[in-house]
């Protein structure tokens, strides 16, 4: 019984309550943090990484460009860092699949709404803005995604991902299965129906002005058809993929047979808009259809019955955007959109007789297409086929799953750091937080006091002003006088009380005091002072006479 009381007391004690509240607080904070982190660190398939070597990763592509002498680098935090690139016109930003969303804050709009609380999935608006700035200043973006979170980025350029699987009744890889769809393009440099091929004007690996079979970059006399140039393994540089070393022939073709894996497609509306410098380069066949109801089968629509069918092709698969019209200016930024995140994965990219996937994967032009894009971006304006010193290919790894939670956490840390020092809203919040913390430290943090011995003794006083007032009242003074008379005449209280008035007058023998004893009226202060003096004097006289 006693024990239970002790326990109850312990449980309800201040200390326990404090502990409980503190624990609850940290628990709450932990849950909150966990739920936030959970949106970032999610388990999923690790794919399409330029640093992975699985069949669905991109290290084949990265290794090849790296061997070509181009610096490759990974972006593990946020595309916000693109603003720090010194020579964007020499840089290519490769996004291959945007597999996850990340933490973001509302953004400043710059108009009357001031702050926009809606933030699209995938890249944050400030990241999109950084990517846009990168492209506007001459950078090249290669965006390959199908069902990921890149809708907002595509939207920035007026494109919309359909978000549905694309199937093709005819153009699918028979060696594999119907998920592998061929996208064949015969003239990849015919940007518009009227433009004709602009390859000669804009692609350094295809430009041969004098048609002597040697591209201008390798031609000793580019404008003299009689004088060519010697093409060697050493000088082909970034155009090596166009040269057949064995036959010595240069591949001037402008067609690509791209093999895609479970592709999606762009919405028909807006995928081609030359006025906005957006050109749909490759499209699926007429037999293709989008599995809009996501049932995995072709559903034929029957409007009368109210059955919505799957949408029929063709659909834009590869769209190109140029900052300048048709990318004719060498400094023009350019964006290549592909509605399949897998076009450059190892199994498709390395297809060929030497490939480990040679048995199953048919030969395709994915590699040629990708290396053309690289060459176009990095060689324009150059006088040789080698990339410049500053040339760089940046792979976006910030939106890929990492192998380990540690890796995810590391990337998250970087993301937070980069985000909070680049995004305006985050910077504002961070700045305010720092300010508050600094203020809090200044206000709350105290040093231990300097030691000093203080000699201190407290003074007491009886000080009660009302008590003093009481001793100024005539009644009290009268009582003191009568006590004094009684004491000095050695009378007991009873004797004194029984004393006749005349006798008292005789004893006192002072008319003023006698009058004071018997006359109960209001006295002026000076009168009272006089009376007190007389009382003191009376006492002394009596004592002296007694003595």
């Amino acid at each position, binding site marked *: 019984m006693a024990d239970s009381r002790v326990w109850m007391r312990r449980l309800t004690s201040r200390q326990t309550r404090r502990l409980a509240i503190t624990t609850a607080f940290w628990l709450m904070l932990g849950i909150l943090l966990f739920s936030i982190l959970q949106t970032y660190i999610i388990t999923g398939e690790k794919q399409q990484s330029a*640093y992975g070597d699985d069949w669905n990763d991109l290290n084949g592509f990265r290794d090849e460009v790296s061997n070509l002498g181009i610096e490759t680098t990974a972006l593990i935090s946020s595309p916000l860092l693109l603003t720090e690139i*010194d020579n964007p016109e020499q840089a290519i930003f490769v996004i291959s699949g945007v597999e996850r969303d990340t933490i973001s804050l509302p953004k400043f709009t710059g108009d009357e709404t001031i702050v926009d609380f809606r933030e699209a999935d995938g890249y944050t608006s400030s990241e999109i803005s950084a990517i846009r700035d990168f492209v506007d200043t001459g950078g090249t973006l290669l965006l390959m995604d199908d069902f990921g979170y890149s809708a907002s980025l595509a939207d920035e350029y007026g494109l919309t991902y359909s978000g549905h699987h694309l199937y093709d009744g005819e153009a699918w890889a028979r060696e594999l299965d119907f998920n592998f769809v061929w996208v064949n393009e015969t003239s990849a440099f015919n940007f518009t129906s009227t433009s004709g091929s602009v390859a000669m004007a804009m692609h350094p690996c295809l430009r041969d002005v004098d048609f002597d079979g040697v591209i201008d970059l390798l031609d000793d006399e580019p404008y003299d058809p009689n004088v060519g140039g010697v093409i060697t393994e050493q000088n082909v540089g970034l155009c090596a993929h166009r040269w057949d070393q064995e036959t010595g022939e240069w591949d001037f073709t402008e067609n690509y047979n791209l093999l895609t894996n479970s592709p999606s497609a762009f919405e028909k509306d807006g995928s081609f808009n030359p006025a906005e410098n957006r050109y749909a380069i490759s499209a699926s066949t007429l037999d293709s259809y989008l599995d809009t109801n996501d049932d995995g089968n072709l559903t034929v629509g029957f409007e009368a019955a109210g059955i919505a069918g799957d949408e029929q092709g063709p659909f834009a698969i590869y769209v190109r955007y140029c900052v300048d019209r048709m990318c004719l200016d060498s400094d023009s930024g350019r964006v290549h959109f592909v509605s399949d995140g897998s076009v450059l994965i190892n199994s498709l990219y390395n297809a060929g007789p030497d490939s480990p996937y040679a048995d199953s994967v048919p030969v395709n032009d994915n590699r040629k297409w990708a290396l053309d894009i690289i060459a176009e971006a990095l060689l324009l304006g150059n006088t040789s086929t080698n990339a410049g010193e500053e040339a760089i290919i940046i792979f976006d790894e910030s939106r890929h799953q990492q192998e380990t939670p540690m890796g995810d956490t590391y990337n998250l840390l970087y993301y937070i750091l980069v985000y909070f020092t680049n995004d305006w809203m985050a910077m504002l919040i961070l700045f305010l937080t720092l300010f508050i913390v600094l203020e809090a430290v200044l206000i709350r943090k105290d040093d231990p006091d300097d030691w000093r011995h203080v000699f201190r003794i407290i003074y007491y006083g009886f000080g009660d002003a009302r008590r003093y007032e009481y001793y100024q009242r005539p009644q009290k003074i009268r009582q003191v006088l009568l006590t004094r008379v009684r004491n000095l005449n050695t009378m007991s209280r009873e004797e004194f009380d029984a004393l006749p008035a005349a006798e008292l007058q005789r004893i006192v023998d002072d008319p003023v005091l006698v009058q004071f004893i018997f006359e109960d009226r209001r006295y002026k202060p000076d009168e009272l002072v006089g009376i007190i003096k007389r009382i003191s004097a009376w006492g002394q006289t009596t004592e002296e006479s007694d003595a």
Partner: protein
Amino acid sequence: MAMENVPPSQTLHLPRLRRRWQILFLQAIATAALLALLFRMTEVYGPCDEGFLEDGNNWCPSYEHTRGLMWVNEQPSFQDNALSGTDGLILPRELVGIDSTGFASQVVPLTMCFLLAGLWMFYQTRDEKVKLWTRRGCTGAVVLWAIVPFILDWFDEIGVIGFHVPLQHIGSLLQPLQLAIELFFVGIVFAPILAGLIGIWSLSRRALTWAVGFFLMIIGVHALLTFQGITDSVAGIGLKPLPAQIGEATLYGGLISPLALDLLGIAILILLFHEAGNAVIGHLEYAVMLPDASKSDPEYVRQFNNVVNSHVLHTVSIIGGVALTTALALEFDALMLDIVAIMEGGQWSGQVSESLELQLTYGKVISAGLFLLAVAGMRYVVPWQRVSGLIEAGIASLRGTRSES
């Protein structure tokens, strides 16, 4: 226990303490740091943007005084001066070093700062009455100097054309404004030096803090005025921004880059100046607090010496250690890259080793943070204090003085 006698020169009385080598050493360090800070700051934050100057502009808000004075010198409304005739400056040209460049332009103002700091110390030791009259005298002199030329001009003119409203002589009243502007330009560079010197030698914590605050403010203003967000909207400031990249570590065997050395130098000098200056004040405050009996108590004297000696040692070793650690921290990203590169094979290690972040500032900061964290944690592993204590105890026992302090 019989007390030994302390020689009068060794007691802890303030006048004697101020002549102690340890105290003087700390003050000398602080002063040297302050001067070095001035030179380093003018070197880094003094120049304007070359392009800006080539465009015909003469002045930018940099940490340098002669350009501002030159501007005053060239102003047509500041040409006539009562004291210096038609010289465009009120302050003597030699005094402010306007006709020199670089170090030569700073020598005389610096000497003036020392002189003023000395005068200030002298002024502080006078009694209240002298102080009051000095203040009044200075104020009166300035007021007279400001008004008398105006009155003389006016009266002179009255003699010629008779009484008139003195509007045309208003120009004489511009002199105080001109002086204020000149002092402002000189003060931007030398006010923290003067305050610092007063702080160190006249023992004022407030002046020390003010000087440090001023330097930080100059750096902060420079940072803001060269921030792209600001320069985009406010063009034509003309400050020379710091390079965007810290550069290759080429100095001291690949330890540090030239730019990082300059910037780290400024940071270390600020720290050294502040700490050494404050240390002197702290020790003297303690000594002043002691009663007379303790000031002559051999134990107190011995322990005071112990404390001050170790402080001198700490100032030198710790600030040196901080410089080295920060330099290493700034270069740790290169080492990090190497370390991560060793961890081959994994997707994550691959991308981290090539990551853009590690090559940019972020990598520097995070790797520097990690390095500092590691250094901080190492103290629990490395028992250097115990080792040094054992050595010290060994030496003491060899000398046979272990029992004495």
